[in-house]
């Protein structure tokens, strides 16, 4: 960071080095607002990004409701539900980390972020297990002897599982990025970068984390819970 430039004429800017006011901003408030707005705009792009896939899902589900219901019941509900709980818990600990950031409790920030990260990794581990199960059950579209072999419904089931892998895969990719962000924030916290006056990165990392959780909150019922209410 080039702090040699002397454009911070608005006296208040020089309070503490840890405030890390970048040279293009005049005040911390402006910097915080810009970062927060930036993250919100980014999340809007993410909504549109997942939105395209959700649109494809909506169209195919309305075209092929019966097969989607059938394929959905073959998904492992207990595992999906467990993962939903894991993510909800991680959102809670993320909020606690942001709260600790507001209060400037460095140790608490690190502990809560580590727990959040642990939940994130647990989610990914469970997801990986679930995916390997799919390979064994011949639910992967590219493999031979796929689900519903020999019936006319197989193609549509392949579309269901294609969407399942594409969308949960995309979501898992976002979780991986999220874990990376948490690692970075933990490192920065241990360096003493953040204070009650400057904890914006923790805050916006939280926004991202909650967003990724929220995507799963939509994915879970749309993939796992179709037709579960019907008597079998």
């Amino acid at each position, binding site marked *: 960071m080039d702090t040699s430039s002397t454009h911070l004429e608005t006296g208040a800017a020089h309070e503490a080095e840890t405030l890390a006011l970048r040279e293009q901003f005049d005040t911390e408030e402006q910097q915080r*607002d810009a970062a927060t707005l*930036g993250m919100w*705009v980014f999340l809007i792009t993410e909504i*549109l990004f997942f939105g395209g896939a959700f649109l494809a899902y909506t169209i195919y589900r309305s075209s092929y409701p019966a097969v989607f219901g059938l394929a959905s019941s073959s998904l492992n509900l207990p595992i999906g539900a467990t993962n939903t709980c894991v993510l909800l818990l991680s959102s809670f600990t993320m909020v606690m980390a942001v709260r600790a950031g507001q209060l400037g409790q460095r140790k608490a920030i690190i502990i809560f972020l580590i727990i959040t990260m642990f939940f994130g990794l647990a989610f990914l581990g469970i997801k990986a297990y679930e995916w390997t199960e799919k390979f064994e059950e011949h639910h992967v579209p590219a493999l031979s002897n796929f689900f519903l072999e020999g019936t006319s419904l197989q193609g549509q089931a392949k579309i269901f599982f294609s969407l399942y892998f594409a969308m949960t895969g995309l979501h898992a990719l976002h979780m991986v990025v999220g874990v990376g962000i948490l690692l970075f924030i933990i490192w920065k916290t241990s360096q003493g970068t953040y204070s009650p006056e400057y904890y914006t990165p923790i805050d916006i990392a939280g926004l991202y984390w909650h967003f990724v959780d929220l995507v799963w909150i939509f994915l879970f019922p749309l993939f796992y819970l179709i037709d579960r209410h019907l008597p079998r």
Partner: protein
Amino acid sequence: MATAAITAERETYLNSAYGLKSWLLTKDHKRIAVLYFITISIFFAIGGTFAGLIRLELLTPEGDLVSSETYNKLFTMHGVIMVFFFLIPSIPATLGNFFLPMMIGARDLAFPRINLLSWYLLIAGGAFAIFAMVAGGVDTGWTFYTPYSTSYSTTYVIATALGIFIAGFSSILTGLNFVVTVHRMRAPGMTWFRLPLFVWSHYATSLIQVLGTPVIAVTLFLVLCERLFHLGIFDPALGGDPVLFQHLFWFYSHPAVYIMVLPGMAVISEIVSTFSRKPVYGYAFVAFSSMAIAVIGFLVWGHHLFVSGQSLYAGLVFSFLSYFVAIPSAVKVFNWTATLYRGSISYDTPMLYAFGFIGLFTIGGLTGLFVASLGMDVHVTDTYFVIAHFHYVMVGGTIMAYLGGVHYWWPKMTGRMYPEGFAKLSALVIFIGFNLTFFPQFILGYLGMPRRYHEYSQEFQLLHVLSSAGASVLAVGYIMPAIYFLWSLRYGPVAGANPWGASGLEWRTPSPPPTHNFDRIPVVTFDAYDYSTVIPTEVNDVGH
């Protein structure tokens, strides 16, 4: 910063640091704009070369220069390079990057490091695309229609799509940066309705980049999944829907047209005002027309699917909505024209380009109404009429505006004037070459010449020869600025802070600007285009 004597070496963004590293790791929006400028100039040359080969092949009715497979690759790579690696970044990433922060009185964009990252993303995306071309090319057309792109094409679809996917994030991040910058970085007194119209147009563009680009990203992601992992999402053999791909593709790619042309309109508003020495007529109308184009632009994508098996009712609605785009577009054209009325007009090179833009964009826009009407479109779909239409908007519009803007701001960016005589000549050559290239294509298309064919029947040859001749004139017109701009870097007259007597904040700081744009952040007490507060500087021919 002390005010140095005029003779002493003043610190500018160009001489504040030297060496490759100071450029490749810069966070200065002006230097990043220069990096973009060099990058997209190279892409323009590559894309132009492909276009030249296409025109050369079409000189004769026989497919004698290249095979049909090669020809498919040529027009695909021309489209991919020109759309994703030249037109989309063109004005926003160069002129927008350089001048948007200056026009609102900011020291930089809100996120300088993200700005640099976005340039690297364009380079990375470009590297994949270039790799695909060198390795053997890609032949799907720039639209990647499924199922050809997912199941049948044996060319480098994956590398190209990945390149566009990555470059898309460059575009998203530029848009995000602009949105936040306009919201949060305006100088004291710079209210929304004092913003130059350049900023309004770029703001509207950024909204499209932020809202549209993610959709093509996920669409290409699904295509990649289909090719790489044999998932089946658009595959008709499974019951998938290729038309769904077209909907998703055009949901971005139609608004992308406005990503390309709105920044052109941004430039024209500045030039027309400056060289008429009058405020743009109906400021608020022009500002909101940009926003209206951005909004309506998202509601018309279905007019690309009139013959794709989309329902007739959807076609009717999309046709109806498409006409609406003409309203804000016409507002702009009328208001620029009204700005000229009783203006003190000077015919410097940027103004010539602006006149070129207004005329050619009008033709491009009006023929857009032809193809927006259902019956007419069935006749001209996939013909040269459509090619001519969008080249009038993209080349006659955006590239004219881009070149006009580069001439207009060249003295600010470099501190040097370009040679006016040569520049006027090049503007004229480009205008003539452009019309000679593309006007015959309207006729060709109307007569039934389909696009994407490397052979054609004898009767079309005259018009094709005219078009190819025009393309060579156009090439001369594009090479001329490349030469005299380079010449002017060393030998051009020293420009001074405000050679045009323009009113924007970017003209109220020295040329080239200091690293932080202004010695002191300006406090804005005047509206945009207020010429009563302007002191023009003399062009000084003693600098070299």
